[in-house]
């Protein structure tokens, strides 16, 4: 009997054994973890994906709706949301120490989309995951929609997806496109247009400390006219040295959920009605496994 044959022969036994082991274990151990993964759907209004772009040829301003305008969406779980602290709904804060802003002490959080370095410093803090299918999509958006063509480290415009790929592989020593976070592929885009014309996406908040009565709230960081984001820190992230150039890849600020008002500015969309989780404890939440929709409908105007 060949060794491979032996392995195949044992598969059913293996399954039985695995089942027995799982059953035996289920009888003996319940970890009762106080953390839960919270899943649901975020909805951002169509306006958040809408820009008015001046057509170079006609000089006319045209409305462009494109999910690629949607910035990173942040979610946090908090003890309470108050409407008197800022000009928009804002989590309750803890003590003020030394005149500094109070900390919100979030129970957990998550995002839809993260900043990722798209291999050229000209894209630093401008590329969010889940928004682009491939290299061509990125090149097209920056060149034709934003009118901010991507340039390489020598300042030359990047026009070829193949050149784009080569640059990425050289920089990161990657060998497959799926190693690059910012390329989502055809099926990996986060946001899809719904029946109302708004955009929605699924989210997961990993391992949130569960407290009965906590509220899920968040905001979407809208890029400014130059397509810059306030929640991205260009000096954060991994440091790279390539040839003689040293640069960082940029990433989100590390205290976004603790001090959201430091980062929320005009044009961002905030959750007006947070979702309250009323299950008695984490086990009850897990049993129910609820999903819910969070609407980012409060436009920050001042």
């Amino acid at each position: 009997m060949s060794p491979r044959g032996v392995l195949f022969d044992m598969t059913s036994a293996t399954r039985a054994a695995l089942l027995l082991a799982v059953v035996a274990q289920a009888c003996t151990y319940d970890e009762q973890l106080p953390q839960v993964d919270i899943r649901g759907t975020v909805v951002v209004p169509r306006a958040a994906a809408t820009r008015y772009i001046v057509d170079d040829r006609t000089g006319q301003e045209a409305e462009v709706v494109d999910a690629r305008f949607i910035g990173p969406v942040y979610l946090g779980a908090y003890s309470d949301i108050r409407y008197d602290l800022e000009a928009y709904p804002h989590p309750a804060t803890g003590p003020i120490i030394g005149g500094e802003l109070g900390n919100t002490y979030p129970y957990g959080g998550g995002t839809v989309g993260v900043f990722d370095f798209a291999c050229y410093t000209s894209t630093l803090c401008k590329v969010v995951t889940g928004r682009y299918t491939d290299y061509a999509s990125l090149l097209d958006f920056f060149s034709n929609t934003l009118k901010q063509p991507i340039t390489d480290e020598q300042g030359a415009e990047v026009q070829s997806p193949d050149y784009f790929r080569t640059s990425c592989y050289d920089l990161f020593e990657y060998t497959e496109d799926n190693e690059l976070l910012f390329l989502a592929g055809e099926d990996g885009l986060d946001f899809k247009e719904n029946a109302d014309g708004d955009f929605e996406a699924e989210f997961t908040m990993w391992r949130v400390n569960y407290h009965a009565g906590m509220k899920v709230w968040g905001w979407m960081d809208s890029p400014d006219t130059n397509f810059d984001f306030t929640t991205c820190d260009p000096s954060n992230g991994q440091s790279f040295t390539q040839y003689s150039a040293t640069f960082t890849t940029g990433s989100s600020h590390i205290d976004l959920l603790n001090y959201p008002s430091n980062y929320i500015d005009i044009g961002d969309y905030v959750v007006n009605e947070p979702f309250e989780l009323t299950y008695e404890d984490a086990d009850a939440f897990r049993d129910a496994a609820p999903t819910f929709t969070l609407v980012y409908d409060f436009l920050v105007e001042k």
Partner: protein
Amino acid sequence: MSRLLLAVGFVSAFVACDRDSKQYFPQPVDEYPGVVDLGNFTPLTASEWLDPAARTDKSIYAGLGENANPGQWGGATFTFQGTGGTVCVIVDPEAVFWNTSVDVRSPADGYICEDNNYDDGDLDLEVGLSAYYNGTPGVSIGNFEQVYEDSLGNEVVFEANECQMIGFRGQAGAHAGRATPEFCAIDTSLHPGRDYTVLLRLWSVPADDFVVHYAASVVEIDGDDCSDAISAVAADPECVLQNEGTGEGFGALEELYCNGELDTLCTEPE
């Protein structure tokens, strides 16, 4: 040979089992307790601060020894009342003058300067409302950690030390090393008249005498940081509070340093 090795082996094995490290650490010094409370301190006014004699007279000059309880923090505490404005709190442990004597490692690249590498102690500065300080003054050293309970009853330990320094890698809770002065601007406008505690946490004592001598002070300032107050009296924080060290020749060396004449002690590498 075998017999000798056997004998050595047996002795080594048994002796080694009983070794510990106690004898290798700095020992407490009777005259300088490791935990002291210096009482209340009145912040200096701007004019007092600018007057060298008054600055010296009204500032704290003291020493700390190793804590008699190994493994527990030592340090000094004192309090001041919130002025309603901003104050600058500064502490300068002996000694370190940033000369280049440390680089005998590579004499081809550096200078050789006279210095005593072993007279540098270190204190770390923390300041906060006394109500938040959880140590027992004069008995044990604590910190400014307190518990906040949110509306759902969740408790979070938070840091109420208002003298937060950010480290090289961006993390909070950093402190300067090796006898370097530390200072912080404290805004007392929300709590005028309330007690603030200044904690000088003993990080290490110098190797030469196991006592770290230091100077400390609190001064009223106008801005929101210490820069003006410091630059008004010295080009270097090391020279704001002088003569904190008691070792032989300390004052003269510090004076050379503060006058920018330290190089006179240096020789070019061979």
